[in-house]
């Protein structure tokens, strides 16, 4: 028996030395805290100052709040914002839920193709979607004029609260759709089977069993959509400001960037109040999702339930969804691509006789326009890579360490969700103004990258977190017992296992950074333009052709990145 009996003395792994575990964790926590607090502190400070925070002789005051709260413009704007938010949420969650149930739980034909088409707005900048809709359905839009020529009256008014809400709803449908399909995938199909056995028909089962099980996902979607709609800048800006419809985000935009003197105190006061309101909503949402466990049916079962047979309803319902997808998404996007290649787009003239490259020449002929494209790609690539790595490490500290403040860190990582993009931009701008020594960074792509990373920590966290939780903690425990330190375990076990999630998370950040404009609007300067800011600039000058060209370029980059990442790395951004 002596053959294999090892000597008794134990070998303990070498390299006791310094324990890097805590310093690294503290470092990550401090950077995260800094990222989140950095833009918010100056806002709070400025909201109590009687003049811009970089000026001398400033004094503390409550005047900003007083001025805003007694302004009828503010109250009117608030009312419009709430109306817009509620209509958007109802439309978006309603459409998203119906689509999710129909496309994952029934025998609808074409559901694979439709699934992809429904998700398209997820990858498109809301700015581009707004331009696209204006191209087709705006007062001078292609379809508007086409119908008006036919029946003699203007059929719809896109530049209205309802019109803006409809476009915003289509932009947010993928979010509800994602959460609902995710929740449906985790639902034990036996629950539906039990409903059928108990005597319920297919539709009855959908209504009495499937839908109630979706409640947590719906509650989550409602609050997420409402919060996002309230902070949305682009669609109300493009479709609302021409006719004087104003929401809080465009109000802030006007206070800061339109007209002569920016009202610093007013901007700060509005921002702080918006933050408070949204924080409350987000807090309510965490309460709602905190209860989600109650609804967790048998977890993670991969087995697909039998789909429900719709019989006679199959084709009518499919047709309806096709109509939604074509009118809501495909047609506007095709329209803007077509517009980018024509002198002007009108149903009265065959567009193919007006083909031109002039819009692209305009873009590529102007240094700052080209620079904005390169800046966007640079920020998306480098900033996205740094961002996803940072976020992954943060998530590992939260989920896989003994760091004493990890619970708090998780809250912190998710908090930027409650900060509207335009406020992130203002906050970072003022922080750079206020803190001496980092001035040169202001108005560089570095500043933009930092702001973008902060803004999308929750998104990256949401992409990486579940993947971490799916890795059995016994795998890291085994590494620890085998002699690896926490850091070594992260590097040799967890990060390699997370590679698919890191790739997907990177693509997600890349696309989000490429789309991002709202936090850049206050922060960019000559030299650090991005596609979004250039589009708004061109739009304000009334150059719809070059706007369309730039939109098309952004769509093309997104498309290439999506295809390459899926073909080469098998990245899955959802589902």
């Amino acid at each position, binding site marked *: *028996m002596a053959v*294999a009996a090892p000597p*008794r003395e134990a070998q*303990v792994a070498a390299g006791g030395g310094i324990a890097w575990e805590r310093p690294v964790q503290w470092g990550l926590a401090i950077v995260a805290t800094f990222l989140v607090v950095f833009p918010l502190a100056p806002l709070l400070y400025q909201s109590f100052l009687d003049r811009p925070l970089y000026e001398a002789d400033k004094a503390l005051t409550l005047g900003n709040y007083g001025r805003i709260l007694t302004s009828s413009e503010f109250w009117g704007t608030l009312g419009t914002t709430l109306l817009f938010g509620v209509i958007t949420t109802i439309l978006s969650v309603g459409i998203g839920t119906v689509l999710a149930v129909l496309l994952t739980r029934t025998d609808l034909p074409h559901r694979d193709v439709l699934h992809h088409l429904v998700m398209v707005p997820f990858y498109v900048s809301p700015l581009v979607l707004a331009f696209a809709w204006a191209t087709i359905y705006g007062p001078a839009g292609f379809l508007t004029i086409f119908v008006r020529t036919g029946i003699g009256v203007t059929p719809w008014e896109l530049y209205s609260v309802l019109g803006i809400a409809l476009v915003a709803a289509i932009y947010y449908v993928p979010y509800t759709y994602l959460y609902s399909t995710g929740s449906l995938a985790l639902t034990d199909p036996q629950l539906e089977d039990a409903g059928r056995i108990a005597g319920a028909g297919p539709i009855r089962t959908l209504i009495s069993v499937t839908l109630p099980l979706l409640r947590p996902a719906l509650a989550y979607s409602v609050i997420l959509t409402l919060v996002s709609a309230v902070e949305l800048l682009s669609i109300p800006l493009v479709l609302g400001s021409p006719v004087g419809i104003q929401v809080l985000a465009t109000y802030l935009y006007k206070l800061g960037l339109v007209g002569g003197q920016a009202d610093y105190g007013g901007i700060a006061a509005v921002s702080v109040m918006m933050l408070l309101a949204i924080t409350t909503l987000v807090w309510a949402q965490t309460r709602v999702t905190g209860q989600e466990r109650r609804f967790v049916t048998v977890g993670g079962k991969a087995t697909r339930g039998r789909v429900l047979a719709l019989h006679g309803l199959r084709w009518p319902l499919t047709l309806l969804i096709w109509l939604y997808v074509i009118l809501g998404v495909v047609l506007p996007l095709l329209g803007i691509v077509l517009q980018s290649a024509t002198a002007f787009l009108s149903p009265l003239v065959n567009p193919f006789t007006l083909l031109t490259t002039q819009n692209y020449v305009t873009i590529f002929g102007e240094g700052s326009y080209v620079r904005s494209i390169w800046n966007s790609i640079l920020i998306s690539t480098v900033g996205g890579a740094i961002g996803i790595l940072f976020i992954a490490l943060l998530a590992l500290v939260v989920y896989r360490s003994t760091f004493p403040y990890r619970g708090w860190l998780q809250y912190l990582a998710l908090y930027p969700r409650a900060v509207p993009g335009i406020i992130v931009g203002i906050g970072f701008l003022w922080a750079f103004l206020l803190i001496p020594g980092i001035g040169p960074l202001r108005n560089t792509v570095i500043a933009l990258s930092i702001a973008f990373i902060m803004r999308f920590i929750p998104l990256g966290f949401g992409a990486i977190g579940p993947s971490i939780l799916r890795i059995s903690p016994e795998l890291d425990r085994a590494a620890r017992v085998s002699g690896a330190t926490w850091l070594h375990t992260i590097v040799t076990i967890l990060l390699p296992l997370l590679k698919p999630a890191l790739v997907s998370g990177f693509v997600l950040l890349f696309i989000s950074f490429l789309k991002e404009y709202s936090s850049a609007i206050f922060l960019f300067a000559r030299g650090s333009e991005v596609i979004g800011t250039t589009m708004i600039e061109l739009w304000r000058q009334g150059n719809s052709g070059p706007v369309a060209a730039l939109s098309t370029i952004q769509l093309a980059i997104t498309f290439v990145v999506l295809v390459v990442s899926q073909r080469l790395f098998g990245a899955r951004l959802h589902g």
Partner: protein
Amino acid sequence: MADTVTAPPSSGQTGRAAAGQDLVVDDLVKVFPGDVYAVNHVSLTIPQGQFVTLLGPSGCGKTTTLNCIAGLEEPDGGRIAVGEAVLTDVSRRLILPPERRGLGMVFQSYALWPHMTVYDNLAFGLKLRKVPGPEIRTRIAEVLELVGLGQLARRYPFQLSGGQQQRVALARAVVARPRVLLLDEPLSNLDAKVREQARFWLREFQQRLGITTVYVTHDQAEALAISDLVAVMSDGRLLQYAPPHEIYERPTSRFVADFIGQTSFLAAVVEEVGDGRARARLTSTGAVITSMLTDNPTKAGDRVLLAIRSERIEVRPDGDPGAENVISATIKSFVYVGSAYEYILDTPGGEIRVAAPQAIVGPEVALYLPPDAIVVLPDDPAAPSSAAPPEAEPPVPLMAPD
């Protein structure tokens, strides 16, 4: 030391503890939020080279104890050492991280790293210990040979069967020559049949290496079959720590008697003690029962429980209900389990379970309770354990089995 209830093999006994590499857990405490004592002042010594099982129902604290030994959880009190090497000493704020303890562990899910081959899984710990390359290769070859998987070094974990994965996990745990091998229910993911074979194989493997082993399971049959010593835990407390046969034959508390095997209990009052016997009068019928075993000190007038295993009860269809240690019973129900007929019988003192080799002709029967099969237990339902005194003798199966 607080109210520790057990008598682990005493370390002061002969001085042999100091000489060896015994794993000593002293007064271990782990409190979870909400003042839940997951481990409640547990002390036990695991002698060098022995196979010790922590046994108990889920939530009894056995896995927490194991994780405290491994350093995966930080206890709130106590001391853990292997020979001279102190792994944890809460009073000195010393808690070595898991990677500095020199232990090996097999997890319930095996925890084989899916992105590494079998070879890389095994090499991981050796590289961290700066073992030279050629030696890594020979050691891995050796240990894979030992578990009978020599030809699978280049496979990935997902290409292996459950039994093979379990062996790889075991190989990985011992390849770096750990001080102690920790096993967290490593057989629970195997099919029943494979599992029984794995049990024998694991025991043989441990004896060949002669490695000190702590094994956690909730399966009492497994614990009895595989261990040198069994530590029965409940509610964070260590109730009894003894060799398997003693755990089975001479439980010191109702919980242990109930948890292991099939046991019936009859309430009684002790009449007299002496001469290696105890005589007790059943509370229900007043019949007098004689018991041979008096591990638990009792005196006349004590309220006790008489515990008896179902397979030790003899059925006497023609027995005289008035005779000594004979009680009358009525058949209530039975199941046939292949190796026996298992009966539930009604007696005035409550239900009694009997495993009989043949079918019983009923419904009225007489049951003979052999004096040497009866264990007298303190009848203290509030704290079934706290009355357990130190065992009369420390368990001494400390000889190596060869």
